[in-house]
Structures are given as C-alpha cells and as structure tokens.
C-alpha cells in the first residue's frame, strides 16, 4: 500500500515525525502561549489595581438621560439601561473578578490541603472517613453543591465565593493526600520519625514543601475557572447583587436587552473569557515549570 494513501504510515511512528524546524516552532509557540498567559495575567493585575482610577465614570452612578447608548467616543463601550458607563463597570469588575478568584482558590487550597494532609497522616479509619466524604462531595454536580452552600449562607458575592471554594475542596484534598502519602514513605521521613520529630513537625517540615508544587499548579489552573463559576452564580442571580459591577451579574442584566442593545452583554462576557484564558495559559505554564504532570486544562476537564 502506498505511503501517500496513509499519511501516517511513513517510518516507525504512525504520525509523521515533524521536521526539526517544525517541532522547534511548535515548542516555541507552546512557550509563547505560556508567555502570552503571563503577560495577560500581568495586564489583568494592572487593570485590577488601577482600573477604577482609569474608569471614566462612576461605575454605579445612574444617569437616566444617557441610558442604552451604543458605543461612542463619550462612552467607548456604551451605557446600560440605567445610563451607567459599561467601560467603567467592566474595569471595576476586574478587581472584583481577581479578588473572587483569589479568595475562592484560597478557600479550596487551604481546606483541601488541610483535609488531604490530615487524611494522609492519620490512622487508617480517619483517612477512610475523610476520603469517603470527599467522594460524596465529588458525586454532586458542581453547580448543585454550590447551590447547597448558597442555600445555607444566602445569596451574595461572599457566599458565592465560599461556595465555589467548597466545590474545589475535594480535588485539592485528593491531590494533596496522594502527594503526602508518597512523602510519608520516603526514607528521610522515616529517619526524622526515628529521631523523634513529631507528626506535626514532619507534616510542616517535610510534607508541606513537597505537596506545595502540585497544589499551587492546580490552584493556578483553578483560578480562571473560579472566576468563571462565580460569574455563573452571579448570572443566575445567586451571587453578586445589583448594582455591584460584577461581570456575571452584568450579563444577567443584559439578557433583556441582548437582541436590541448587544453591547450590554458583549463586553462583560469578553472580559470573563479573556481572564479565564489568561489564567488557563498561566496555569499550563506553572504546571510545566513545576513539572508536576497531570493533564492540561486545555487537554481535559480539570474535574476529571
């Protein structure tokens, strides 16, 4: 059979081995994407820090004379149904989004790591109990689990952040537990134990530094996803409440106007997409840098 017919038949590899130039270019673009992620995140951080200063208008001040204006020189991204400047609201939303991602991530990282370490370093039955609870939490579709938390705490931005944090606790618990179990079997840990170092000492001095890299890589990957999901709760009306310039809540507002005044919804959504993309790329870069393995966010579901 002719090689031309089977593109992947040439050579020992079923896929044609790319030329050195091509593979070098691919490696470069892979790194370029990582670099792009870093630049985008840096840009977001700058916007989050100085955005409210750059905002040409007060993001929550209503100006009914100017309502539903299309993008123009005066209002670059137009105005909403209350005449509020959308550019100002999107810029102010950046600070909220980054804070939200950071806090949700912190909740998941802290409690997940705590559970994972406790499970790895306690008796068998305690480990089993913790991990079975973690399995049960994983049995909930994530939005439903977030809704349970919000049903308890009430609606609002803070409950939404806690809810999304809680959703990711099981993942961190599993990740940290398996990393910690590997450390526990190391000879130097055994030596430390023989020298009389307490369990807390071993956890703090030996386990923690070893579980930190995968946990941090995972946290970076989840940063963008937390932003996305807190915005989702805002969109459902369960997160940030009006007039907070939160991107998800802005999109909820825009639903009524989407067919006539597209700019209300277009820009907050774009802002979410850019932020999520930035942190996904950075997350991939961090994972590669720490060389902790696992699948790329772009290659698979983070919840898998």
């Amino acid at each position: 059979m002719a090689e031309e017919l089977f593109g992947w038949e040439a050579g020992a590899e079923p896929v044609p081995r790319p030329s050195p130039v091509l593979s070098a270019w691919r490696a470069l673009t892979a790194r370029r994407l990582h670099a792009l992620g870093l630049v985008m995140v840096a840009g977001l951080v700058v916007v989050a820090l100085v955005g409210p200063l750059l905002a040409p208008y007060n993001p929550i001040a209503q100006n009914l004379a100017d309502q539903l204006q299309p993008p123009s020189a005066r209002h670059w991204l137009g105005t909403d149904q209350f005449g509020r400047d959308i550019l100002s609201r999107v810029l102010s939303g950046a600070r909220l989004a980054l804070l939200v991602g950071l806090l949700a991530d912190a909740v998941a990282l802290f409690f997940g790591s705590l559970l994972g370490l406790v499970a790895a370093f306690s008796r068998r039955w305690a480990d089993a109990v913790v991990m079975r609870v973690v399995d049960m939490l994983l049995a909930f579709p994530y939005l439903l689990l977030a809704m349970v938390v919000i049903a308890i705490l009430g609606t609002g931005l803070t409950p939404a952040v806690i809810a999304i944090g809680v959703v990711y606790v099981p993942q961190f618990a599993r990740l940290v537990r398996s990393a910690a179990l590997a450390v526990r079997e190391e000879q130097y840990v055994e030596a430390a134990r023989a020298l009389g170092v307490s369990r807390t000492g071993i956890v703090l001095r030996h386990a923690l530094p070893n579980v930190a890299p995968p946990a941090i890589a995972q946290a970076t990957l989840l940063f963008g996803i937390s932003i996305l999901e807190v915005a989702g709760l805002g969109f459902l009306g369960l997160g940030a409440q009006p007039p907070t310039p939160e991107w998800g809540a802005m999109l909820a507002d825009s639903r009524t106007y989407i067919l006539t005044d597209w700019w209300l919804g277009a820009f907050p959504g774009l802002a979410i997409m850019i932020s999520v993309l930035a942190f996904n790329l950075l997350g991939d870069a961090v994972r590669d840098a720490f060389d902790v393995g696992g699948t790329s966010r772009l290659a698979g579901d983070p919840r898998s």
Partner: protein
Amino acid sequence: MARYVAGRVLQAVLVVLGVTVITFVALHVVPGDVAQMIGGEKATPQQIAEIRRQLGLDDPLWVQYWRFLSSAVRGDFGISLQTRRPAVQEVLTAFPLTFELAVLALAVAGAVGVWLGIASATRAGGMAEGTAMLVTLVGTSAPVFWTGLLLLLLGGGVLRLFPIGGVLSSGVALDRITGIPLLDGLLTGNWPAVGDVLWHLVLPVVTLALLPTAVIARITRASMLEVLRNPYVQTARAKGASRARVIYRHALPNALLPVVTTIGLQFGTLLSGAILTETVFALPGLGRVAVNAILSRDYPVIEATVVLTAVVFTVINLAVDLSYGLLDPRQRQG
C-alpha cells in the same frame, strides 16, 4: 462479572446515602429554626413550639434523619413552601427538560468531538485540527451563558433563523407523557411538534455542547495517537487493511476507552451548564426551579432537587463504569 457489578452497585448506593446525609445535615440542621420560618415572624412561642412538635424537630437527630430518608425513598420530600405542591412534583415537572437538553448536547458533543478528535489525530495540520483548537479555546474559556447570549443574538436576532427561547411555539399542541418534549412528540407521532421542539433546541444544544465537544475532541485525539502507535495497528496495515478499517475497526474501539470515561465525567459539568443555558433561553427546567427555591428558601424543593439530581448523576456514573467493564474485559477482574 456479577461480583463486579454488585460491588459497583453497592458503592453507588452508599454514595447516594452519603448524599442524603450531607443534604440532611446541610439543609435540615444548619439553616436554623425552620419552625420560625414556617410560622413567620409574628408567630407566638406557643405556635412555634406546636410547629416544632408537628415537624418532629425535638426528636433526636438520627430519628429525624431516618424519617427524612424513609420518606425520601418513597419520593416524599414534603410540601413546597412556595407553591404548596409536593416538592418532588416540582422537580419531576422540570427535570425532563433539563435531562433532554443535557442528553442531546452530550450526543452532539460525543459525535462531533470523536469525529474531530479522529480527524485531527490522523490528518495533522488539517482543517479538523484547526477547528478542534478553536472549539477548545472558546469552549474552555468562554462562559456558557455568554456564548448562549451571543448565539441568541446571532441566530435569533440578526439572522432570525431560530426562536429566541422557550420549548414550543404558541399554537403547537403537545400531549405530556414523559415530560421530555422530544420523546412525547415521537411517542404520539406528532411530527409538527417534533420539528418545532427540535427547532427550539438547536441554539441551546449548540451552546451547551461546546465545552464537552472540546474536551472529548482533545481526549479522543490524544488517545487515538497513543493507540495508533501500537504494533497491532502496524500489523493490520501490513495485512493490507484499508485506512478506514484500520482506524474504525482496529484503533477506534481501544481509543474510545478513555473517551467513555470522559463522557461520564462530563455529565456533572453538563448538568451545571444546562442550568445556566436554560436561564439564557428561558426554558422552564431544573435551573429555574432550583434558583427560585434558593431565592425563596424553599428547603423541601432544594432537598428534592439535590437528592434526585445526585441519584440520576450516580446512576449515570454507574452506567458509564459498567459499560467500561463491557468495553475492557480487564476491568472486570479489578
């Protein structure tokens, strides 16, 4: 095989039991005084005590849990505080629509994702690879509620090709049998309604399918590349099997194993996405019921939603695991 199935079923039952415990603790114990909420702010202490007695809130916790569980098994989650109808009925009315949306989106994502994955694995640098990259980029970064709004604007507003929401056009009649509009249309042979339902479903299904399509395409591609490297694929080619036969008969069945797992794992994400998509397209599904219940603190309905969804979710995971056993004989021993 029987032992494997029995073990997995037992495990699933335990997970569902665990979910009821978590739900019970989270929504029965934590929220504070339910009696006060039912009685309202003007209720006298005597009235509150009476409500507490009626609801059995003074009994030990495990008695209360047992009561909760034994009624839940019979499908009794209490009466909705809002509509005064059985809570389970509220959920069962809305669930079929969400289920239909999720299943159709998964079917579309499975077909398109697997096809994109195969095409981009076997023809590097082609159109399929570019499409897969684009779908991945948008699917994993853009919020589903934003792509939904954009599709609505484009397909319903600018091009006027599709309806801008709802399940059926006004004037189209459809008898309710299962509550799943498409299935009801097919069962009653009501073809105009089937067409109308499908026409309404195009935009929501495309919206919801985007993310799982991306994920499935990536996994299929990676898995296919892996399998194509095997010696037995070389053997098949050496025997003179056609390209299509090598790909679809020899390589694909093995390449699909991780894909099936992924599809199963996608279901939770899909259910969550369905709730957001429904809100965009004004579909009266589970999302609306759940959000309304939370906003009005309608605990029986929240409990029914959570427990029933977790049951469905667990059953689907179980089915995926068992099909995995069918696909890969090695799994049955494990």
